[in-house]
């Protein structure tokens, strides 16, 4: 028992070091990259989606797989942008108020969702994200219609905004990690594994599921605000189902219910996406074959590949890429330890 506790303790601290190392790496990364586009549109989006996917992952950690998280991304984005541009508050205030508004609406949706089983919850959240587009397009005067309206970033582009985003995302992900490690996270895990048993051990499952909903939607809203600022514009397209499925795909590909999974997934997916325009150009000669997608052949093929990739990961690698990495790490660790013990043995043989 003691052994197990210490094991988890070390593992915990080791993961923490990985996170710190990742943040350190991310903060020196811009020194080696000169392209403003890559820093401002690829790295920043990567960080924001790591936060967004982590927020989704926290909800999944409590056994609730949302299919409509883009609703909260969009609510956070629009709320923070409207507060900053129309009401004249500083952007940073708008950002956090946007998160709070998103959490408020998340609370209301969560109230309807906490008693539902996996597929009902997925239906309700999926429905919500589709319907909210329908509702928002009815108020074009406020939300700017298809063209949207410009946002006010919390810091100047490119480097100051990059570091501001990195700081906010790192603190948020660290908080999510703390929640997962805390007693609250333990309750979430118990609910995910077996809701009935969790209830029998005295966990108020409805309350805890609602708490997970509120925390998750807060961070999703925060990510939405950051995303709107990173794009300099906010448009209705932020609500599209694609944005709902992305955090799910990132988390599943990276590794569900782990802290590093969504981050790894975000790095992979955003990197692939950043090559899509080049792929479109490269594949343009193929467009006579595909009359529907004249200059989007690369994007369409990329999305088909993403769908197949997701299916393949679910079937063949259900614990995601993280499981491969940790397996490799453990093997390396064993290898070195074996090496050491061998040299020890050799020494002892030599001594006798």
């Amino acid at each position: 028992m003691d052994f197990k506790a210490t094991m988890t303790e070390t593992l915990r601290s080791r993961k923490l070091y990985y996170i710190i190392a990742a943040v350190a790496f991310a903060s020196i990364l811009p020194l080696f990259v000169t392209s403003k586009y890559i820093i401002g549109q690829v790295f920043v989006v990567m960080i924001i989606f790591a936060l967004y996917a982590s927020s989704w992952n926290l909800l999944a950690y409590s056994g609730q797989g949302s299919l409509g998280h883009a609703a909260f991304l969009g609510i956070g984005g629009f709320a923070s942008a409207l507060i900053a541009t129309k009401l004249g508050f500083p952007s940073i205030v708008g950002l956090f108020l946007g998160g709070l508004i998103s959490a408020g609406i998340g609370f209301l949706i969560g109230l309807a969702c906490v008693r539902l089983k996996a597929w009902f919850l997925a239906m309700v959240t999926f429905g919500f994200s589709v319907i909210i587009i329908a509702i928002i397009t009815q108020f074009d005067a406020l939300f700017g219609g298809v063209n949207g309206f410009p946002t006010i970033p919390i810091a100047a582009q490119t480097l100051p905004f990059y570091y501001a985003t990195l700081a906010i995302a790192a603190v948020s992900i660290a908080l999510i990690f703390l929640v997962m490690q805390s007693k609250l996270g333990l309750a979430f895990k118990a609910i995910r594994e077996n809701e009935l048993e969790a209830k029998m051990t005295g966990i108020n499952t409805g309350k805890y599921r609602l708490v997970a909903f509120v925390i998750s939607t807060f961070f999703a809203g925060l990510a939405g605000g950051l995303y709107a600022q990173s794009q300099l514009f906010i448009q209705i397209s932020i609500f599209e189902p694609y944005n709902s499925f992305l955090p799910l795909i990132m988390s599943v590909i990276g590794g569900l219910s782990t802290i590093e999974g969504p981050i790894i997934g975000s790095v992979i997916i955003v990197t692939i996406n950043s090559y899509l325009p080049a792929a479109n150009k490269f594949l343009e000669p193929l467009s006579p074959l595909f009359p529907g997608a004249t200059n989007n052949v690369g994007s369409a093929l990329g999305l088909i590949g993403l769908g197949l990739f997701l299916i393949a990961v679910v079937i063949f690698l259900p614990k995601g890429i993280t499981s491969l990495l940790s397996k490799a790490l453990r093997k390396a660790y064993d290898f070195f330890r074996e090496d050491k013990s061998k040299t020890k043995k050799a020494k002892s043989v030599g001594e006798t």
Partner: protein
Amino acid sequence: MITLDGFAQALLFGIANGCVYILLATGLNLIFGVMKLVNFAHGQLLMVGAFVAYETTKIFGLNPYASILVSMGSVALIGILLEKFAFSRVRGTEKLNEIFISLGLIYVFENVATLFWEKNYNIQINSPLVGLSLSLGEIAVSYDRILAMVIVVVILIGLMLLMSKSKIGLAMRATSQKSDASMLMGININRVYLFTFAVGAALAGAAGALYGIIFNFNPTVGALPTIKGFAIIILGGLGSLPGAVVGGLLYGIAETSTAYVLSDPAVLGSAGSWPDAIAFALLIAVLVVRPTGIFGQKGE
């Protein structure tokens, strides 16, 4: 102006639209009832069915109503492949895995379709009956809608006969009640699952062809019908076939009558997306008040 005649017209349209939704929802419900699987890519199967019917009428000059059979067959084939190579692989693992796989399928279907047909370009299947309608006093119903209703009734009767009279139907019903016990009784449940998925997909294919005749569509049309299908089966009760019929009719009527009340009759579609929003509110209300639906049994 809201008139009685106008309302009757909306009611009739609602029943006709509801019939298309019934087919989709019945397929979803059948798959759920027997396999306990929720296929979020069901609306994409409808989309594929619509395109198959569109192309067969265009290329081979087939009557659109005959092309329903073609699209049923081809979508059933797709369903068999999906079940065999994707869904059966994750059976017995977490429920979320099935949802993830159906999401992946949404990506695959929608984007394969956008390769061949333009994304935001709406098309409609050319029916020989287009523009013709039966007038009953102030009310007029197009023959296409009437024929759609007849076809849906025929298909549903066929499905009912299949479920109640045939051996495979018996096996399906047994599996839906208790899969492990029916396995012990010598039912090959993997074959039952394959057959169920094929039938469910064929229903989605038929719904797609009718959808393409009545409404216009494009490669991204699938998401909304999926949600409508969910709303209907939740309304009627998950796993209950009569529930899907009643739910579909109620849903269709609710949709067209909200559209009628909210819209300016001079401007087509001026109610915008409010009917969809109301449908969603209905879904949540039913889930909160009576999670088992109108005809649903306790337990699931």
